[in-house]
C-alpha cells in the first residue's frame, strides 16, 4: 500500500472535515480575521463568518473572499430603537435637505445645501457622543437576540469550533457555549491547529464578496 498517498488522503479528508465559524460584531476585529483566513483557507479549512455590519460599518474592511459571510447587519438596523434614531435624526432630515438643495433655486437652495452640510457634521457628532455611548453597552445583548434566532444558518452541527473575535459578540458566544455543550467556543484564533494540513488551495485572496449573505 502506498502509505504516502494514504497519509495525504487522510489529511485531505481531515481538511474537508474542518470547518470553523467566526463571529465579528465590531469592525476593528476584521484585519485579525482576514489574516487568519488567509492562513487557514489555503489549507482547506472552511471558514464561515457572521458579521453584524450595521451602523458604523460603512468604512469597514471587507472580509476575505475565501470565507462565506453571513450578515445580520440589516436586522440590526431594523431594530426599533436603532431604526427610529437613524430615520429621525439622520436619514429623513438628510433626504429632505438634499431634495431642497436640488429643487430650490438660488439663495434658498444654497441655504439648504449649507444646512445639509451642517446636518451631516452634527449627525457625526451625535453618533459619537449620543448614539454610541447609549447603544454600545446594549448592542451585545441586542445582537445576541438577533443572531440567536438564526443559529441554524450557521450550520453549527458541522462546525469544529466557534471563534468569538470581539467583546460585542461575547453574549452570543456565551449563549452558544451553554446551548451546545459539545461545541468549542473560544476567543482565540489559533492558526497552529491547522499547521499539520498542507497548503492545497490558492494563497491569493479572491475578490471580497459584498453584499454578504443576509440571514
Amino acid at each position: 500500500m502506498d502509505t504516502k498517498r494514504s497519509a495525504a488522503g487522510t489529511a485531505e479528508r481531515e481538511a474537508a472535515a474542518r470547518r470553523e465559524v467566526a463571529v465579528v460584531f465590531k469592525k476593528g476585529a476584521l484585519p485579525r480575521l482576514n489574516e487568519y483566513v488567509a492562513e487557514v483557507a489555503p489549507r482547506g479549512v472552511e471558514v464561515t463568518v457572521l458579521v453584524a455590519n450595521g451602523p458604523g460599518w460603512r468604512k469597514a474592511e471587507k472580509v476575505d473572499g475565501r470565507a462565506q459571510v453571513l450578515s445580520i447587519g440589516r436586522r440590526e438596523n431594523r431594530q426599533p430603537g436603532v431604526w427610529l434614531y437613524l430615520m429621525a435624526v439622520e436619514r429623513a432630515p438628510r433626504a429632505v435637505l438634499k431634495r431642497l438643495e436640488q429643487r430650490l433655486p438660488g439663495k434658498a437652495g444654497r441655504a439648504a445645501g449649507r444646512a445639509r452640510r451642517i446636518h451631516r457634521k452634527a449627525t457625526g457628532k451625535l453618533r459619537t457622543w449620543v448614539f454610541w455611548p447609549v447603544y454600545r453597552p446594549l448592542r451585545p445583548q441586542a445582537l445576541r437576540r438577533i443572531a440567536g434566532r438564526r443559529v441554524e444558518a450557521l450550520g453549527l452541527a458541522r462546525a469544529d469550533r466557534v471563534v468569538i473575535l470581539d467583546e460585542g459578540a461575547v453574549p452570543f458566544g456565551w449563549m452558544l457555549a451553554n446551548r451546545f455543550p459539545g461545541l468549542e467556543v473560544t476567543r482565540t484564533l489559533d492558526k497552529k491547529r491547522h499547521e499539520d494540513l498542507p497548503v492545497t488551495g490558492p494563497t491569493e485572496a479572491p475578490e471580497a464578496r459584498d453584499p454578504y449573505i443576509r440571514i
Partner: protein
Amino acid sequence: MSAERPRLLYLAYYFPPSRASGVFRARATANHFAEQGWDVTVLRAPDRFFYDIIRSVDEALVETIDPRVTVLQPEMDFFAWENDLRDYSFWRGNFPVLAQKRYQRRLDRTFPEHYVTWAENAVKTGRRLHREQPFDLVVATGNPFASFWAAWELERRTKVPFVIDYRDSWTLDQFGNTDKFPPGHAAWRWEAEIHRTASAAVHVNDALRAWHAAKYPFAADRMQVVLNGWDPDIMDAEAIASAPDEARPLSFAFIGTLTHVQPIESLLEGHRLLAESGAHPGAGLDLYGHIGFFSSQEMKLRAELGLDRERPGVAYRGPVPKSEIGTAYAASDVLVFLNGGSKYVTTGKVFEYMATGKPIVSVHEKGCAAEELLRDYPLWFEPASLDPADVAAAMADAGDAARKADPDTAARARAYARSFTREAALAPFEQWARELVARKAR
C-alpha cells in the same frame, strides 16, 4: 534576624516549571540563598498559567530546585487570559463591556498590570507566612513588575525591607532605547514610588543601572549590578569537547530563543555566502531552541524569520530541555551569538557560550552590552558589520579557529568563563543582603 537562618521571601512569578528565559536567574537566586543558609520561600505563578495559558514549560527544571526551597503558588484572576467562553461567569458572558470596564477600574486603582491579582494574593500569602514566622527580606524579580508592587505593599504592611531585581527594564524599551510608556502613565509614578522605599534595585548590567540612576537620582546610591551567569549544575562545561570531529563538516550553532529582534537574515545570508565561498565545505547552521517565548507566536514568527522554507545547510533542531543543553553544545563547533543588540541587553546565553570554550561569532548590532564581556574572551569573532559578507568572513575565521583547536586557547577561554558562574555573580549580593538583614536586626 530570625534565629540563625535568615528568612527570605522571593517573589518570582516566572519560576520552574516555566521555561521563560528569566527563570534561570530566579532559580539560581533561590538556590544560592538556600545554599548559603537562608530559609527561602518562593511565590510563583500558578501551574495553570504555565500549562494552560502560555504553555511554556520545562519540567526538568523543577528537579534543579534546591529541596530546601519552599515554593508556593498564590492564585490569580485569569480574566485577561480566559479564552474559553464556557469559563466565563454569567456576568462576563452577558455584560462583557461592563465586566471589562470593572476589571480595568480594578487595575487602575491598584497597579497597571494584568498580573496584579497574583500580586494581591502574593501579599496575602506573604503576610500570613510572616505572621507565622517573620521574614527578614523580600526580593521581587520582574517582569512582571506587579511583583515589585507586592514587595512594596508587603513592606508598607510588615516593614520587611525589600529589594527589586530588574531582569528586564520596566519603563525603558531596551531595544529601541525609548520610553515604553507615555508621559503621565501610572507605571512612571509606581516605579518612582517603589524606588523611594526599596532597600536596593538590582540590574543585570551597568548600562541599565546607569539609566535608572539618571532617572531616579534619589535612589542611585541604592542601585547595584548583579550580572547573569552560567549554571555549572545544569551544564557540565568540562565535559564539552572543544575540538571538532575532523571527519565531519563544521556545525555552526545558535542555541537560545529565536525572536523577531534578532538579525537572523544576516546570519542566514552569511551562512549561505560561507557555503558558496567553500571556506568550510558542508558547514551546517543548526538552530536550537524555541521560536518566540510563547507557543502562540511560533507560527507567525517562523514565517517572519524566514524559517518556514527550506534553506540548504540550515536545520531547525527544535527546543532542547535545559538538562540536555550540554548535548547541543557538544554537537556544535562554533557558536553564533545572535542577539537583538542593545547596550541594555546582555542575555544570559552569552555566559553559557563562553563556558564551552568554543569559538563565538557575534551577529548583532555594535554596542550590545554583551560585547563588554566577550571582549576578553580569546575566541570571540566579531564581524565588521551585519552585512552578510562580513558575517560570512567572521564565520570563516571562527571556523578556522575551531579546526585549529588550540588547547591552550580553549583552556584560557574556559578559565575566563569560570569567573562568570551564577555563584560568582550572586555571592556579593547575598553577602550584601545578609549585612542588610543584620543591620536591620540591630
